[in-house]
Each structure stands twice: as C-alpha cells, then as structure tokens.
C-alpha cells in the first residue's frame, strides 16, 4: 500500500471535476475514480492509469452531474436592472463632466474604429465587383533584374493572340493597349488616355453600360465612354450615335461613333477606363504597330479560364512562348510566364511592376488599424481610471447593496451592465460622429471614396464585437475592483480608496506612453514636412516654365515665337524632360554587364537652363559630332555601377558606343517618395525635340506661362496646350505630404485629449482620497508651495517612468513610420521627441495644477466635514 502514496492521480482533471460537478456529489465521485485509479495502477502502467483517470473525468461532465451555472449566478431580475440604471443615470448626472469624458472618449474611439472598418472594407472590395472575377487572370512574367527576381504585369504583344489560338480552355482573351490622344467634340478639345481593347473586355469585366450595347465594341468605328467622359464632352445628353474625333497625332485622325456609355463605376475599383476602342485601331494610330513583335509589350493581357485546373494545364505549356520572347529580346531574358488571379490582383499590386493595377493604400492598410487600436486602448484606459473615480463616490451605495443581500457577483453584474449601456450609448454617438463628421472629413481629405454601408450585416457584427470588447475591457477591472470592498469597511470609513492601487498607475503609464508616441508622430511629421518642402530638387525648379509639343516643327515655331518675349533668360529643347518623361534604357558595359537606367535626350543648353550642376567633366557642345556619342551621367549611376574612373568610361546603348564626358549632381526627377535612379543624358537630335524649357526672370513666371499658352493657341488652335510651371510637375505630392501632416496632427490632438482627460480623472481621484489630509495640512499652516510639493512628489516618479519609457519607443516608432512612407525621410534627431515630451509634461503639469488650485481654494473646514 505504501507504494501508492507517492503515485497519485493527476491534479488537473481533479480541478476540472471540482469546478464543474455539483458539490454534493463530489466526495463520492472523487472517491470512486480515485479508487479506480489505484485499482488500475495494479494492472496497467501508471501512465495509462493516469490517462484513464483523465478520460473518466471528462466523461463525467454530464448535464445531470454538473453544477447548474444558470442557477448559481442568478441574473438580477428586470426591476433590479431598472434600479441599476436609475442609480447609474443619477450618478452620471451628478458628475456631468466625467460622464461626458467617458462617453465622449469612447465615442471618438468607436468612430475612428468605424472609419478604419470602412477603409478596410473598401480596400478589400477593390475590383471584387466583377462577376467573372474568379475566372480572370492577368498575364505576368518574372525576370531577374539587378540581382532580384521581379514580377512584371506586362506581356509581349503577340502572347494574347497565341494563347487564344493554342488553348481551347481559354474562354476569352483581352489585350489592352494604352495611348495618349487628343479628343475633340466641337469646342471641347482635351488630351486624353485611350484604351485599345479586344471586344471581349466588356464581357469579361463587369462594367454595365448606361446607354448602348457592349457588342458594339467589336465595330472598329465605335467608341465607349465612361460616364465621367460622357458628361465632360456631352453634358447630361445621351451621346449615342454622336461623332467624336480622335486625333492620334498630327497627321492621323479618325472619327468614332459613340456606341456606349458606362454606368457609374463602383467606388472601390482599380481597373477602369475613360475611352475604349477596338484593339485593331492601334494600326490606325500607328501604321508601324506590329502585333507580332515579341520585343514589344502590352500594358495588360487578361485571360478568362473557367476553372483553375485548366489554368494549370496552360501554365505547364508556356515554355515555347518564353523561348520566342527570349529570342526576340536576348538582352533581357525572362524567367517564366505566370498568371495572377483578378481576385488578389489589387493586393499584389505593390509587388507587380508596370502593372495595370496600382496600390495606393499600403500606408493606410498598416497605419489605420494601428491608429484604431491606439485610440480604443486609450479610451478604455481612460474609462477605467474614471470609472474608478466615479465608483469612489458610490461606495456607500455598494455597501448598502451588499448589506441587503447582493453578493459580489451581483455587484459585478451591476457595473458591467451599466457599462454596456454607457458603451452602447457611446457607440450610438460614435456612429453619428463617424457618419456626419469623421467620414466626410476623411473622404475629402484622403481622396479615398469610403462609404459606411449601414445596411451591411457585417458592420453590425463588427460593431457588436467592438461594443462587447470595449465594454468588457473597460468595465471588467473597475467592476472587480469596486465590488471587492467589504461593507463593514466601507461604513467604518477605514478604506484608503484608490490611494495605492498599482493598476491605475500602470494604466496611466501606458496611456502616457501612447500619448507620447502619437505626439511624437505629429511633431516629427510637421518637421519632416518642413524638411521635404525645403529639400533641394537637385536643380533649380523655380522660375522655370515648359511646354510639351507633338513634333519638331511645332517646337521650332513655338521656340521662335517665344524668343521675342521679354524676361526670358534661357531656353532649351529636349526629347525628354525632368519631372515629365524619362525613357528607360539598357546600358551595356564592355564587360557585358547590363544595367537599367533612365535616359534624358537633351540639347546643349539644357543643363544651364534647368540649373543642373556639373560636378566633373563637361556638358555637351551642340556642334560637336563626338558629343553625339557622349553621356553625361548622374552621381547615382556612378555610385550604383561602382565606377572608379567614371570619365572616359565606355558604354554601349542600342549597339552604339558612348563615353562618359561629365557627371551632374543627383537630382529628383520624381517626387521624394521615389528613390533617385541611375540616369544618363545624351545629346538629342534637333528633330527629336518635344519639350521647350524656358528659364525666366524671377517674378516673370506667370507672364511667361501665359505667353506660352497664347503663342501656342495662335499657332495650333486645334491642339490643346500642354505645359506648365516646373514647380508643379510633382502634381499632388506636396498636397499629399501636407495631408499626412494634418492627419497625424489630428490624431495626435485626439490622443492628447483622451490622455489628458484620463489623467485628469486619476488626479481627481487621488486628491479626493486625500482631501482630509490636505485640509489638516492647510490648517496647520501649509502654504501653496508645500501642498504643491506633496502632490507633485506623488506623480514625479510615475511621469518620469512613463516619459523615460515613452521617449525611446516614440523615437523608434517615428523612425519606422517615416521610413515606411518616404524614400528620403528627414534624418531624425532628438528634437521631435523632446518637443513631444515637453508638450506632454506641460499637459501633465497643468492637469495637476488644476487640482492644486482646487485644494488651495478649498476651505479646510469643508474638507474635514467631507465624507
């Protein structure tokens, strides 16, 4: 027998048993299974006996034997709830300020969560409205470029047609080509993007037509307009059957008949169009357009396959096309063709190069949920702190409830149910706030066309989940804390309420850290914005205007006309232009190493006109035949190619040898979101000039710009003017940067507001608990200084710890945030964090100051009388 003493049954099943089984059955059952265990030990290994024991316990969990949970936690009856709400409502009304803080904080947080929900909903549903989305795939290829395998969204021109012929399982193929044209209808003449597509486009994609028939697209002379374009050219009239003139270039025009107008596009779309014409019009636009040219690419080729099994079969037979393609372009071999399903195309957009889809939401997808969690956590901590304060004023009520028979569970239930009501109320206000304030503001400010579909079932699920989460997280701790007091202690008044509660301190600490992080983000973004605005573009973008012309004669005529204008200092012609157009080229070193680079073909005056700075070598000379075989490169190219002796270095471009004669300082052709790429300048043949750049006297920019427009209108009344100020070439970049700044400032302000409200609650709690002490101090002659010292002492360590933890965290957070968004972020120094700390410390001090003031103003007698 003694051998059994050290081999006992396992503990954990016993605990389960004790928790679930009715008390009156416990002794018997425990005894039975224990006896069985010892009986089994004699027959089987201990392990097996233990396993049997555990299995028996699990099998004992039967309804007859279980504690009746519903019975032992008797839910308070309806009148009791009415009483709860009455008392809690009175309690709230007695302190309208704290009630407001509670409800307001939660509403704001819930409102922000809803915005994030709307955003995620929008982001998830992009391009998901196409009925055939599960059958449509984009043809892509992978290739090794600069040592990395990258995926491209383009496809060789003949591939689509070949796939259609060779595979029976392909239901539809749609090739998409893009072109810039001028479109004219009576007096409306504009530059537009047009898409040449196979007629299957409207069958594959779900773009219903408002007017007209999708079949009409198979007519070579038909054109289908988007709703926006229909309004732009024809107003609200039905334009079906009307003629519209498409000017492909100076010599080629074609009249199309409007045969369809698309209905309003769904808001969450990525793939869309302005104008659609039959693919074969590419031959009209460009007589030399060769659809069998494997070395040329189409922006997109879509296929429609009924099931994915068919697709795999196709993917296994793509090798011949790869061979054809690589024979046509031996310099840039591709690794493989593959297909990307439309359903996940938008998600992958950021990793697909040159694809028809674009991803502008990466920033939001990461940032928004973080912000939502931040806010809800802040609001919950607030609520917790303030709930404890308010409960301190209801201790007597809790005492009375307990004396007349409420147990701890009932008190917890009371507080939780109150909390659910308050949270629901906050959620109601949150929805209203979100719908009427946040959402319109956010849509206007971000440009994302979000909507909050109130009838969407998932929204309500989300809301209920959010509500329960918030109610539990914010209410559980106060409920547990408040309910644990014993009535005797409450009535004896021997409670030191809230004075030494480690949890409230931790909550406050976390709150301060979160606030510190958001303030830092706000400050750093403001600093970064300033930095970005003043960052050098690498050339002098001010006092510059430019014009884009369709051909060389137009350039000559405009150039000649502008020479007469006063105030023009310098002028240059070029085939490409900074900020507008850089052509991709492939450079080959004598060692046969290849590099991708950008090329700008310019004239000899270009560097000086644009203010590009030569740091080594020389620029071009117009009359030198040798310079037609010369490169001027940027620093980035020298760095990327690790050239030790860049000047005189030989390269091959399209089979022609070139030599580097000069190096210019790095410049930003594109905005600061993009990294500077290796770039070469070549001397353009005069016949290739398409851009006219003019450096003007300071202050004369607007006059020069208007002169350009007038001269152009005089020379070519048919063709709309294209050009502008060089400073505007980055489009909405600065607007976007300002937008992030505003957004971060708003978020920081809300966070600070919430945090300081929470702080206010906690300080008030502490002071309320010590009001007698302070009164006695005052009676004994303590002045404002000593009272302030006593109060500050309590918070110094707490605030110091929060700020010490908060500062490095904020710094890292801001760093990560900036790096994620900007290719050239501001070099982060400590000023941003320091300013945030100062702001936060000021807020903390002023909150404490309000309470010091309260004590100073308090009449000591009143304080002593207070219970």
């Amino acid at each position, binding site marked *: 027998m003694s051998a059994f003493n050290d081999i006992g049954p396992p503990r954990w099943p016993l605990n389960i048993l004790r928790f679930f089984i009715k008390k009156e059955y416990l002794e*018997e059952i425990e005894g039975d299974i224990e006896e069985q265990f010892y009986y089994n030990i004699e027959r089987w290994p201990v392990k097996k006996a233990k396993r049997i024991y555990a299995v*028996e316990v699990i099998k004992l969990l039967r309804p*007859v034997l279980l504690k009746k949970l519903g019975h032992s936690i008797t839910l308070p009856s309806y009148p009791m709830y009415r009483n709860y709400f009455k008392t809690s409502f009175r309690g709230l009304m007695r302190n309208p300020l704290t009630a407001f803080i509670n409800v307001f904080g939660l509403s704001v947080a819930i409102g922000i969560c809803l915005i994030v929900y709307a955003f995620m909903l929008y982001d998830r549903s992009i391009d998901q409205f196409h009925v055939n989305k599960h059958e449509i795939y984009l043809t892509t290829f992978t290739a090794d470029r600069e040592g990395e395998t990258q995926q491209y969204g383009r496809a060789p021109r003949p591939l689509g047609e070949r796939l259609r012929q060779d595979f029976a399982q392909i239901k539809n193929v749609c090739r998409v080509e893009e072109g810039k044209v001028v479109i004219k209808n009576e007096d409306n003449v504009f530059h537009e993007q047009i898409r040449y597509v196979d007629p299957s486009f409207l069958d594959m994609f779900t773009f219903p037509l408002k007017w007209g028939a999708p079949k009409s697209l198979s007519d070579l002379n038909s054109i289908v307009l988007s709703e926006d374009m229909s309004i732009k050219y024809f107003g609200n009239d039905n334009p079906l059957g009307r003629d519209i003139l498409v000017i492909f270039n100076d010599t080629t025009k074609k009249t199309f008949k409007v045969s369809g107008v698309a209905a309003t596009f769904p808001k969450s779309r990525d793939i869309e169009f302005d104008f659609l014409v039959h693919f074969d019009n590419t031959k009209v636009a460009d007589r030399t357009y060769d659809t069998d040219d494997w070395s040329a690419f189409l922006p997109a080729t879509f296929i429609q396959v009924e099931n994915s099994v068919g697709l795999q079969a196709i993917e296994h037979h793509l090798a011949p096309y790869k061979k054809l393609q690589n024979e046509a372009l031996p310099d840039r071999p591709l690794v493989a063709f593959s297909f990307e399903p439309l359903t996940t195309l938008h998600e992958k957009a950021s990793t697909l190069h040159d694809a028809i889809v674009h991803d502008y939401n990466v920033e939001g997808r990461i940032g928004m949920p973080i912000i939502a969690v931040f806010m809800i956590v802040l609001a919950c901590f607030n609520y917790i702190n303030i709930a404890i304060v308010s409960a301190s004023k209801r201790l007597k009520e809790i005492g009375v409830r307990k004396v007349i028979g409420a147990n701890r569970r009932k008190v917890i239930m009371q507080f939780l149910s109150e909390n659910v009501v308050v949270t629901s109320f906050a959620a109601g206000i949150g929805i209203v706030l979100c719908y009427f304030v946040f959402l319109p503001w956010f849509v206007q400010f971000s440009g994302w066309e979000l909507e909050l579909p109130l009838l969407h079932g998932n929204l309500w699920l989300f809301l209920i989940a959010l509500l329960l989460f918030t109610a539990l997280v914010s209410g559980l701790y106060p409920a547990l804390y408040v309910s644990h007091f014993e009535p005797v202690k409450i009535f004896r008044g021997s409670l030191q309420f809230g004075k030494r509660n480690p949890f409230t301190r931790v909550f406050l600490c976390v709150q301060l850290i979160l606030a510190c992080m958001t303030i830092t983000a706000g400050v750093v973004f403001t600093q970064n914005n300033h930095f970005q605005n003043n960052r050098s573009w690498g050339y002098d973008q001010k006092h510059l205007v430019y014009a884009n012309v369709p051909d060389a004669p137009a350039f000559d005529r405009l150039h000649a006309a502008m020479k007469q204008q006063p105030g023009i200092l310098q002028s240059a012609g070029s085939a490409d232009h900074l900020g507008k157009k850089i052509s991709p080229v492939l450079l080959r070193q004598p060692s046969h190493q290849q590099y991708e680079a950008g090329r700008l073909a310019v004239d000899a005056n270009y560097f000086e006109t644009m203010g590009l700075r030569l740091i080594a070598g020389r620029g071009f000379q117009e009359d030198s035949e040798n310079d037609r075989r010369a490169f001027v490169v940027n620093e980035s190219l020298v760095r990327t190619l690790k050239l030790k002796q860049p000047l005189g270095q030989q390269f091959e471009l399209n089979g022609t040898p070139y030599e580097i004669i000069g190096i210019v300082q790095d410049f930003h052709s594109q905005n600061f979101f993009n990294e500077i790429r290796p770039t070469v300048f070549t001397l353009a043949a005069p016949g290739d000039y398409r851009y006219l750049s003019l450096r003007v006297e300071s202050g004369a920019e607007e006059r020069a710009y208007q002169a350009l427009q007038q001269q152009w209108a005089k020379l070519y009344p048919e063709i709309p003017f294209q050009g502008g100020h060089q400073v505007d070439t980055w489009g909405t970049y600065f607007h976007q940067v300002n937008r992030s700044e505003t957004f971060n400032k708003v978020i920081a302000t809300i966070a600070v507001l919430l945090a300081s409200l929470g702080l206010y609650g906690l300080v008030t709690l502490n002071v309320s608990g010590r009001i007698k002490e302070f009164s006695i101090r005052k009676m004994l002659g303590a002045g404002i200084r000593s009272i302030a010292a006593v109060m500050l002492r309590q918070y110094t360590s707490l605030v110091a710890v929060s700020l010490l933890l908060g500062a490095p965290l904020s710094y890292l957070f801001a760093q990560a945030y900036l790096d994620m968004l900007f290719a050239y972020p501001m070099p982060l120094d400590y000023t941003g964090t320091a300013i945030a700390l100062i702001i936060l410390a000021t807020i903390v001090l002023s909150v404490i100051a309000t309470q010091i003031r309260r004590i100073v103003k308090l009449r000591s007698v009143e304080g002593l009388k207070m219970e």
Partner: protein
Amino acid sequence: MKKTKLGEFEELVLLTIAALREDAYGLKIKQELEERLREDLSMGSIQSALKRLEEKGFLTSEFGEATQKRGGKRKRIYEITPYAHRTLAELKAIRADLWKSIPKLASSLKTI
C-alpha cells in the same frame, strides 16, 4: 408502469444494486456491470444513471465508510426502494408473460 419510465440501462443498474446489497457503491456497481455485460463502461454513465434513478425515487443512498484507497473519501452506498422493487417485479412479470407467448407465436409462424 404508468408514467414512470425505466430505461434498459437503468434497469440493469437497479438490478445490480439489488444484487450487491451493502456493497453497492459507484465503482463496485460499475465493475460488476462491466463483468456481466462484458463491455467497458464509463464512470460518467453509471453516475448519471444513479443520480437520475435517485431523482425518480428508485434509489436511496447514504454515506458509507472511507478507505485509504479512496484518499479518505466516503463511499455512497445505494439501496433500492420498495417502489423500485415493485417496478422491477412488474417488469419481470410483463417480460415473462411476453416470453410465454413467444413459443406459440413461433410455432404458429412455422405453420404458415
């Protein structure tokens, strides 16, 4: 019989208890039944049957002695009530009656 329903398993448990007399406690009942039925039973099924039967008034119980093997916990000894005894007897009578009629039925079936 009227309203009271007695399941087959419950009937077996009742009979076992009657047979075991003073030794009728949870584990013993289980082992006895396992032996007779030649199948493994779980403590849960026995216990729930016992509690149900007690609720229906077929059983009474009281605590018995504790042993070291049981970790000092007392046994609960079950005893069938007179009501249960009557019900069992009734059931047996009904069954016996039915059995008696079987040979006739069987032979009449054969003649068809």
